[in-house]
């Protein structure tokens, strides 16, 4: 079946890209450590452990808060099987879990007119899939199935974990860079100059530029990972349902539906199937999600 191979190729390419971007992220963190070493005269043997401890602490904190905080920020409640539309959600979650060979996640509902859905949970055993009431009312069976398949793929690919770790690294890079810059201006600024001659100053300036730019680049890297994972979940979801058109039609509906009264914190925005805050139709390096038109085009080319 040539179509199926295509979906698998999409999946492979996306995984490779994510790996590359993650390596870039680690490079940024270590580059920062060395840059601080040059700028402040502190050797990497001191800065490296500090940076790694800060990064790990950041990851642990974001990791331990994820499920409950996401659910309460969204104001979500468990789906009620007595209501026909919510029963359909429970059914679709069960079906997609079977197709993915995963334990069945809990189905949740968020009261919102907006068409949207998200998945959370650190591992598949404690995962949750939440859909908005708007999605349940406006999407037909096939479209809902596409959306749930997309969310199930986020769970299967452990995207929640990937995104939590990247958020942790981004936060750590920002914090370390901030501290380094403060130390540079209020204390150790002269130290680097004392030690080295004319060539040394250039290195120090390059290091400082790197310290200033690292947080921006790490943020951009994080957004790039977020977009890659979105494409990957689209392709994987299409493979689960064997029906890319279902998700494509759902995304068409989301495109036509303007965001309305978003709830919850902005940090969970990348978890949703489409950004609940703004529907950027153009490609931008600052968006958490790829443009809907491009996602629809890719799904239809599978």
């Amino acid at each position, binding site marked *: 079946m040539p179509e199926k191979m295509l979906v698998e190729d999409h999946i492979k390419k996306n995984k490779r890209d994510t790996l590359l971007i993650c390596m870039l992220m680690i490079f940024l963190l270590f580059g920062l450590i060395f840059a601080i070493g040059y700028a402040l005269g502190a050797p990497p043997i001191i800065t490296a452990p500090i940076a790694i401890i800060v990064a790990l602490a950041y990851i642990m904190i974001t990791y331990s808060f994820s499920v409950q905080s996401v659910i309460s920020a969204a104001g979500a409640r468990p789906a009620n099987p007595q209501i026909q539309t919510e*029963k359909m959600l429970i*059914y679709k979650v069960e079906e*997609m879990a*079977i*197709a993915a*060979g995963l334990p069945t996640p809990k189905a949740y509902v968020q009261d919102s007119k907006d068409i949207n859905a998200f998945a959370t949970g650190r591992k598949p055993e404690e995962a949750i899939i939440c859909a908005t009431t708007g999605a349940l009312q406006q999407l037909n069976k096939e479209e809902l199935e596409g959306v749930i398949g997309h969310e199930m793929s986020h769970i299967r690919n452990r995207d929640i974990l990937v995104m939590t770790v990247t958020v942790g690294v981004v936060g750590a890079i920002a914090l370390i860079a901030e501290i380094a810059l403060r130390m540079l201006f209020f204390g150790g600024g002269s130290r680097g100059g004392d030690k080295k001659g004319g060539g040394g100053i250039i290195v120090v300036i390059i290091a400082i530029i790197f310290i200033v730019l690292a947080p921006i680049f790490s943020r951009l890297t994080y957004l790039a990972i977020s977009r890659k994972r979105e494409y990957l979940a689209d392709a994987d979801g299409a493979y689960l349902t064997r029906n890319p058109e279902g998700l494509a039609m759902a995304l068409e509906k989301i495109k036509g539906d303007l965001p309305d009264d978003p709830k919850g914190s902005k940090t969970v925005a990348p978890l949703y199937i489409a950004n609940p805050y703004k529907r950027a139709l153009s490609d931008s390096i600052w968006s958490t999600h790829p443009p809907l038109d491009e996602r629809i085009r890719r799904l239809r080319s599978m």
Partner: protein
Amino acid sequence: MDIIWIILIIALVVIFGIVLWILSYFNRIIKFENRIDNSWAQIDVQLKRRADLIPNLMETVKGYMKHERETLESVTKARAGIMNAKTPQDSINADNMLTGALKTLFAVAESYPDLKANQNFLNLQDELTHTEDKIAYSRQHYNDSVLAYNNAIEVIPGRWVAGMMGKKEKQMLQIPEASREVPKVAF
């Protein structure tokens, strides 16, 4: 003397690496095989669930559809086929028969307004359609698992390891062309 030792140590490390490598393939093949068994168990659970729903449905429908004996009988017969199936392919074939029989029954039910107003009937109809979808997806997952397994034992060096273990390719479940269309039951 020293050189001999170095060569010996390198040789040992290389052999150890190769053994680990083969073991990882061995484990992978076992893991994939277990996954196939698991996904079969999943299909079986759904088939049984579906078969269990049928007596309830018959009980509900009986009072309304007195003149549709043939339709009712074909459903009962297909259900018995699932209960008596010996091989996976037999179960799947019987399930396809049941799907066809239920399709007819639900189509006939359209001309019984009283039945269509019966909440119990509507719930059963929902549930049966849902189980049908679940069976289709568990079948798909079974075939995905078989594909992953077959790929693992066909590509070298997995092929050599599989040869040593005496593992053979497994068959995917054949799904008759007609049943691939999920029956459209109006809600």
